[in-house]
């Protein structure tokens, strides 16, 4: 630590000391941008645009997403209705903007919940060992070998369809891969000298977990979180598609797609656009994950 500080000071010594302070923030920022893979930035830009559009939906959207106009059903795209209108004459573009809020937030909540539970279970499993480890890993193996949409469907049957149920149902299987990754990382970090040193110094288990294990395991876990986001987005959408997720009058992208299936020949755009939105969102977040992973390897 001291050595690296000294080297930094030595490296900066040729700069004027007052001037170095101001651009250093900028320099750090530039270095942060440049050391990440460009694929990641492409993903960030796309997903950023989508998120901004979704957040701004109430101000940006040209129509009320629920306003029906039965005289203007299944209109083709026009200047007034960018993506046309659906089978109840609602503006498809406005509905897309509001629908995306459900899709993305549900997927985001699912990933966060899965990461939290998975990481906790994985670290516990690795540090505790023994019977607990055996039990947790058995459950993980089972969950990984079983179709998650079926488990989710059964849970929805128990809890009743809805927004929150979808999150719980997908998390039920979703935490398993994170638990396995976190367990592997913890076992590896546990063997390092500084964890040994901390143990010998008498640090508490909680201190070691939060101070040493989580900070060191966080990047691969974050990369996997980004990589799994698309999968979660699509699986949650699958529930909605089957009518077991977000309930009417609310709609997410997948349920919009499902409603428009019957009119696919007359108004193909109503099916194509929500699917495309899911596809682009999933892909851009995957790129962020890939960018993180690429950097992790080159170090």
């Amino acid at each position: 630590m001291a050595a690296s500080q000294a080297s930094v000071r030595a490296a900066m010594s040729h700069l004027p000391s007052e001037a170095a302070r101001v651009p250093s923030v900028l320099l750090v920022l530039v270095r942060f941008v440049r050391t990440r893979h460009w694929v990641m930035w492409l993903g960030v830009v796309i997903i950023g645009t989508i998120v901004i559009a979704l957040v701004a939906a109430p101000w940006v959207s040209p129509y009320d997403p629920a306003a029906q106009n039965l005289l203007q059903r299944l209109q083709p795209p026009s200047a007034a209705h960018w993506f046309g209108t659906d089978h109840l004459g609602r503006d498809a573009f406005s509905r897309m903007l509001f629908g995306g809020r459900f899709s993305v937030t549900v997927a985001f909540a699912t990933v966060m919940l899965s990461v939290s539970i998975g990481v906790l279970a994985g670290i516990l499993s690795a540090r505790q060992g023994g019977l607990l480890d055996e039990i947790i890993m058995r459950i993980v193996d089972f969950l990984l070998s079983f179709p998650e949409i079926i488990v989710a469907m059964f849970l929805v049957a128990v809890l009743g369809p809805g927004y929150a149920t979808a999150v719980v149902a997908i998390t039920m299987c979703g935490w398993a891969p994170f638990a396995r990754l976190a367990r592997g990382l913890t076992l590896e970090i546990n063997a390092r000298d500084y964890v040994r040193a901390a143990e010998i110094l008498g640090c508490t288990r909680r201190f070691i977990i939060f101070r040493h294990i989580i900070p060191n395991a966080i990047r691969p876990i974050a990369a996997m979180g980004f990589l799994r986001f698309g999968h979660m987005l699509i699986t949650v959408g699958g529930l909605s598609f089957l009518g077991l997720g977000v309930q009417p009058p609310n709609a997410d992208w997948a349920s919009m797609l499902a409603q428009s299936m019957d009119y696919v020949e007359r108004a193909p755009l109503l099916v194509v656009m929500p699917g495309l939105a899911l596809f682009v969102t999933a892909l851009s977040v995957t790129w962020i994950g890939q960018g993180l992973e690429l950097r992790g390897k080159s170090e």
Partner: protein
Amino acid sequence: MTIFIVSVLAFLVPYITEGDPVRAIIRSRVAELAIDQETVDRLRISLGLDRPLVVQYMGWLKNAVEGDFGYSYMSRQPVAGLIGRAFLISLTLASSALIFAFLVSIPLGTIAALREGKLADNIVIFVTQCFVAAPEYWLAPVGILIFALYLGWLPSAGWRDMSSMILPSLVLSLRPMAYFTRVMRAAMIDVLRAPYLVAARSRGLSVVQAIARHGLRNSISPVITVFAMWMASLLGGSLIVEVIFSIPGTGRLMYDAVVGRDIPLMQGSFVCLVGLAVIITTVTDVVYVLLNPTVRLAHGR
């Protein structure tokens, strides 16, 4: 052990669901208004739903072991027969999709590995990312739109002949194809760096010969593992494709059971699917050992 726990779960799950199953059955057959309480009670007794849960479970388990899962509330047919029929259909669908995915991904993964970090590799990676990011419930209607409605080459739904299998299999195959390709690529990259391949090359074999004789066999075994995992998950997990193309497979059967609150059907299909997942995983381990003499020898000694 796993199967036992799951059987308890599978048995209980439908009972936790809201709604009286007896009333659900009646609703599915006749209008609810016309039914008095006496009829409801009579039906409850005739189905054995008035007994304590433990007694019901023991009776159900005894029959289930013998292959009898009772009768479906909705169609009044034996559950085992329904599952068997649906299972064959799902098996056909899943295997055609997976075999197609396998055949495409082996050369694709090999090419990516040979050109690691180059343009061809990046294109393959990009394509696999697209396949993973594309929802089935988007690809399926778009596929129907193009191939069935515009071009008229393939039927849009149903399960009758070969031509009706093509589109659902194709839609179903893209995601496993992406995963197979990634696994194949990673395995092949490892193999290409292995000493025995360098030795083969230095003996004068061309790259193609070396890969054909030594590379493929060693890099395919991880793909086989992933193949089996996908097999297990597609046998029930092709649900969305089955619903869209109205294919009467296991996923569709479970969906109908859940939506219609058909308890014997839910229990039976859930247990069968889990049992199957366990069996497939076990078989995979055996096959893996057979393909990999090093593992076999290590365990034999």
